[in-house]
């Protein structure tokens, strides 16, 4: 079965090709069949491979399959695929969540025109993401990396006839490109020093002799390891929307909701984390950069959480919560708790996909209305959506017993364990804020009386089963996913942290770095868990007080009046977009205008025009000499003779 | 007397002799022409003045002297006056190259009996005779009347065309001799006891016809054809100037026939008689004059027997008949000399 590993990325690609190229003539049903069938086949194939992988024993517990030599010569890049512990987890998440979202979007996009195009792009996205995850070297990963970037651009700008989506698509693509640029630099550095980009060449070599990487100052005054780590992290920032480069994610909500669910919650944004975890060796040898990653992660988390507090658009709230959760993941990765980071990726994939699809069905029911102030009291009309949405909210808030609690706790535990109490405190506050804004959205949407138009109220109905079934499956996932990695403390002596052990071989431990984090007493650990749970519950209760009941909105506004300045800041996203615009976009525009006006028209065109003018001038001057009068020619002739004579004589 | 001046004096004396001979050609010919024409036209001719009209030329000369000298009003004065003078130039300079006797010894120095003992004798003759055209042209143009202009144009065209044929014919004679020097030609004929006109008869005929044309004699006297162009280029010329033209014409004729005689009839030599010393010189000169006389007579005879050519016939004869013949003759003679017959 494993021999077919290479087929996994190719199946969705084939689906995309069939729909994209031949879809025009297919009836809608056939388009859906191909569009959803390809991810289904991929899911089954992936599960088969995972089953064989789990049961077979492989050298270095990684199954590598090289199909052909993509490039030869110095830069020898094999078109190879790798299935090891890390990519197995990612493969499972991508295919499982991807398939569910395809089923969901069949219903959601049913009556949209451009249906065929939507499924072609979605399949293309799936194949790119699988390529990224299964690649056995950085370049194949980079192909996938670019593929997902492209598909996110296409899907965000899906409603190309409107004004905002294409602009948002372009913004996403450009910001991603900045990150990709740094990623490329890192790859160049690696290749320059190791002559290859394949994981099994580069990573063991680094692990073997760390001196090679940390000694000489390579680029920007940093040793090689730090330089590469930094470059890769900037790439991850772009793709996984961290502080400086996160601006594209909120605007990416202009795309259809399932797209946001798939790309901007479950898969694409987690690519950054996957890349960091894949090259954990480099990060372990670059402590400074790892700390930097942690700090960026924490600050992004709290920053995004604060913005989410004041958002009225339901999808914007979820978008900022995604940014915030990604912050958490990078916080964990920065601190060296790579398994915790990946665990949070998995759990987050489930409940964030669930929340997005839930909000999707709400918007579907509200006829496209996304503003929470116009909703309210929907729990009567949409019971299953309401229940699944609440489960998702509870999970993300970190209420004990659900997935969120375990993965978030792992991260906070890692923070506390490695002695970074400040980061732990930031994490704790963010957990509280998360709980608060999630339940704010729950109350504003589902509780209180309906604030929408009468016609919308009349139209309210529960989503069709094709949408609610995936919701329920994801809800189950959101609950169950947690129990994969139960921490020792709560596992009453039995070591249930299966997930941690599963990833053990991938986290290579380079010599000279003491293994694992020094553990703090079980008592302190127990106390920490209690505190996080209390904070979560406090968040929910406080949200209920401000937004619960019928008058939820007015009470919320009252809170806002009390801190008018803070509220305006949060509502306008700390004016970050405006700052970027002023700092980067406008100067660039000016520079390009300068080049256009001055250099291009004046200098270059000028030069050519001058040339033309000169020739014309000489032509005119020359014309005077041809007077047609024979005697003038005789004169010129004679003068020529004299000159010749003069020249010969001297 | 140094050698240089001696030569100079000798040539002066010789030139004086030749000049005396050729100056008298015109009056004699005047009389001969009138008598021959009369004889041919079966009428008595001039017989009033002196026996058989011998003084007629004297009378004519006097007439020319006393006639009023009229110059046309708008005539181009200098050219009009210079034309007759220029006509005399070729006439009285071409016969210097003709040898008229064996070398004679004068106080110890041998003096060749030729005025200008020049290596390129024949060529000089031809060159200077080609200058004769200018007098015609000047006369025609200067007298400012259409007929004379047309006459001049026709004359120059005729002269140029026939000069070609003449030159080629003469060249044919030179090939066996191998030198331009006329004395060598005469010596060659004497040595071979064969006058040139026999082997090169075609060349001789071409030469003869071309010489008629060169001197504007009757068959070719279109330039001063009375019936069409009144008197051709010398219409406007009165007494004495006309006499000069008259004189030039006859002297030209004499010079050309002298050349012809020297080239084709052995010049001053008599067949099988070796002349030398003073007696030889005298006999040589006499024979040369006799031959020239016969030739002149032939000219006159032809003049009064053949009708005038029309202009295009004249041109066709010149270019399409004489010239090819002359070239043919040249080739034949060259071949014969190469083969050693000549």
């Amino acid at each position, binding site marked *: 079965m494993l021999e077919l590993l290479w087929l996994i990325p190719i199946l969705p690609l084939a689906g995309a090709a069939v729909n994209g190229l031949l879809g025009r003539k297919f009836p809608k049903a056939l388009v859906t069949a191909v569009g959803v069938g390809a991810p289904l086949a991929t899911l089954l194939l992936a599960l088969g491979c995972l089953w064989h992988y789990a049961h077979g024993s492989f050298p270095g517990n990684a199954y590598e399959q090289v199909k052909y030599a993509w490039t030869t010569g110095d830069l020898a890049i094999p078109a190879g695929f790798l299935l090891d512990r890390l990519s197995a987890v990612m493969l499972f998440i991508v295919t499982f969540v991807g398939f569910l979202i395809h089923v969901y979007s069949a219903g959601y996009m049913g009556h949209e025109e451009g249906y065929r195009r939507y499924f072609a792009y979605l399949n293309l996205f799936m194949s790119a993401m699988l390529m990224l995850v299964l690649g056995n070297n950085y370049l194949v990963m980079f192909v996938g990396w670019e593929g997902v970037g492209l598909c996110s651009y296409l899907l965000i700008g899906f409603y190309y006839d409107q004004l905002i989506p294409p602009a948002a698509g372009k913004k996403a693509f450009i910001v991603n490109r900045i990150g990709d640029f740094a990623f490329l630099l890192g790859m160049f550095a690696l290749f320059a020093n190791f002559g290859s980009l394949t994981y099994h060449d580069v990573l063991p070599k680094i692990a073997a002799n760390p001196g090679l990487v940390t000694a000489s100052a390579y680029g920007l005054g940093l040793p090689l390891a730090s330089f590469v780590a930094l470059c890769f992290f900037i790439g991850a920032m772009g793709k996984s929307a961290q502080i400086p480069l996160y601006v594209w994610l909120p605007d990416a909500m202009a795309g259809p909701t399932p797209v946001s669910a798939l790309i901007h919650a479950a898969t694409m944004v987690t690519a950054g984390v996957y890349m960091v975890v894949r090259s954990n060796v480099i990060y372990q040898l670059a402590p400074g950069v790892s700390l930097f990653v942690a700090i960026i992660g924490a600050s992004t988390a709290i920053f995004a959480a604060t913005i989410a507090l004041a958002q009225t658009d339901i999808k914007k709230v979820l978008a900022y919560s995604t940014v915030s959760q990604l912050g958490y993941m990078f916080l964990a990765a920065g601190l060296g708790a790579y398994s915790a980071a990946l665990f949070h990726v998995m759990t987050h994939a489930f409940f964030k996909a669930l929340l997005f699809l839930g909000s999707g069905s709400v918007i579907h029911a509200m006829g496209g209305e996304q503003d929470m102030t116009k909703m309210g009291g929907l729990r009567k009309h949409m019971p299953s959506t309401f229940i699944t949405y609440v489960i998702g909210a509870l999970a993300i808030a970190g209420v004990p017993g659900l997935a969120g609690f375990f993965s978030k706790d792992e991260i906070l535990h890692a923070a506390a364990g490695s002695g970074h109490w400040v980061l732990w405190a930031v994490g704790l506050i963010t957990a509280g804020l998360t709980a608060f804004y999630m339940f704010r959205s729950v109350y504003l949407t589902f509780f209180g009386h309906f604030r929408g138009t009468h016609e919308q109220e009349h139209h309210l109905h529960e989503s069709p089963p094709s949408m609610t079934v995936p919701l329920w499956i994801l809800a189950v996932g959101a609950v169950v996913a947690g129990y994969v990695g139960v921490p020792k403390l709560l596992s009453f002596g039995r070591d249930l942290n299966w997930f941690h052990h599963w990833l053990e071989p991938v986290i290579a431990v380079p010599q000279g770095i003491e293994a694992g984090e020094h553990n703090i007493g079980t008592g302190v650990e127990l106390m920490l868990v209690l505190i996080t749970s209390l904070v979560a519950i406090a968040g929910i209760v406080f949200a209920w007080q401000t937004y619960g009941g019928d008058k939820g909105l007015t009470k919320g506004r009252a809170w806002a009046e009390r801190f008018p300045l803070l509220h305006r800041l949060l509502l306008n996203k700390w004016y970050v977009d405006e700052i970027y615009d002023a700092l980067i976009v406008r100067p660039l525009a000016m520079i390009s205008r300068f080049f256009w006006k001055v250099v291009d028209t004046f200098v270059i065109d000028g030069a050519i025009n001058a040339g033309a003018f000169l020739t014309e001038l000489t032509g005119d001057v020359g014309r005077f000499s041809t007077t047609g009068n024979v005697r003038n020619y005789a004169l010129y002739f004679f003068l020529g003779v004299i000159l010749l004579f003069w020249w010969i004589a001297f | 007397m140094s050698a240089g001046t001696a030569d100079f004096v000798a040539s002066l004396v010789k030139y004086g002799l030749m000049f005396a001979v050729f100056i008298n050609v015109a009056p004699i010919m005047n009389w001969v022409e009138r008598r021959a024409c009369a004889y041919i036209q079966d009428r008595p001719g001039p017989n009033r003045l002196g026996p058989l009209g011998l003084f007629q030329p004297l009378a004519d000369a006097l007439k020319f002297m006393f006639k009023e000298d009229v110059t046309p009003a708008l005539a181009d004065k200098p050219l009009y006056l210079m034309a007759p003078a220029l006509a005399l130039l070729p006439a009285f300079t071409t016969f210097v190259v003709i040898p008229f006797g064996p070398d004679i010894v004068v106080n110890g120095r041998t003096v060749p009996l030729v005025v200008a003992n020049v290596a390129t004798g024949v060529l*000089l003759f031809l060159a200077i005779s080609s200058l004769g055209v200018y007098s015609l042209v000047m006369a025609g143009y200067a007298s400012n009347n259409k007929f004379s202009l047309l006459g001049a144009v026709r004359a120059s065209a005729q002269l140029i065309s026939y000069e070609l044929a003449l030159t080629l014919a003469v060249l044919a004679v030179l090939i066996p001799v191998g030198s331009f020097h006329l004395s060598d030609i005469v010596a060659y004929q004497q040595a071979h006891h064969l006058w040139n006109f026999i082997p090169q008869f075609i060349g001789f005929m071409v030469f003869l016809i071309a010489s008629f044309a060169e001197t504007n004699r009757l068959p070719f006297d279109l330039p001063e054809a009375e019936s069409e162009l009144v008197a051709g280029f010398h219409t406007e010329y009165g007494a004495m100037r006309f006499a000069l033209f008259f004189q030039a014409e006859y002297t030209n004729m004499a010079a050309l026939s002298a050349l012809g005689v020297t080239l084709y009839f052995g010049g001053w030599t008599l067949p099988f008689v070796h002349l030398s010393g003073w007696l030889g010189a005298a006999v040589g000169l006499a024979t040369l004059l006799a031959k020239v006389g016969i030739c002149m007579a032939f000219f006159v005879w032809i003049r009064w027997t053949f009708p005038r050519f029309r202009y295009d016939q004249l041109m066709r004869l010149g270019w399409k008949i004489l010239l090819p013949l002359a070239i043919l003759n040249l080739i034949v003679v060259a071949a014969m000399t190469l083969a050693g017959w000549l």
Partner: protein
Amino acid sequence: METVIFFLFAALAIGSAIVVVTHRSPIYATLSLVLTLFSMAVLFVLLGAPFVGVLQILVYAGAIVVLFLFVIMLLNVQKEENAHVDRGVQLWIAILGAVVFLGLFWLAFWRTGLRIGGPAPARLTEDLVGLKGLATALFTDYLLPFEIVGLLLLVAVIGATVAARRSDSETVRPDDDFVSGDEPRTDPLRSLPDPHRTSVAEPAYSSSKREAHS
């Protein structure tokens, strides 16, 4: 003696050359050209090239210049009125010309060290004067140029006839019988080919009749 001749004929040549250039009537110019050529011929003989001298007279003065005269009379070239260039400009040109010439002369004589005097030339040898040496050289070393010049002359003849020939349609055959009605020929060289005139094959008589009522 011989230098006297040189200076005499040199002066004659320069004098007549000036006349050639300055005289307004082309006939006088041509005739003075003859005089120049004649004096040049004498100088050639003086320089030990009698054959070239005689050739000069025979070919150049005898034929070419006659051709000039012939054309001048044919085209009835009038006296050339003097150019209306005003005095000032003429003066200017004269000065400029003089300066250029002086420069050239100074350059030629002073700069290249060619003293006016110069070595007397070597004794005149017979073979230089004689025709034999010239002829052999002509037909051995210079045979190819000789042939080429022959060809050139042929081409020139053909060219000249073609260029100067009147177009066929209007050459009048001598045996054409003229009818009084025929329109007068205005152009001294016969009028330009008249488009209506038919080809020569048809006798002039009939063509002019058709013209009458066409």
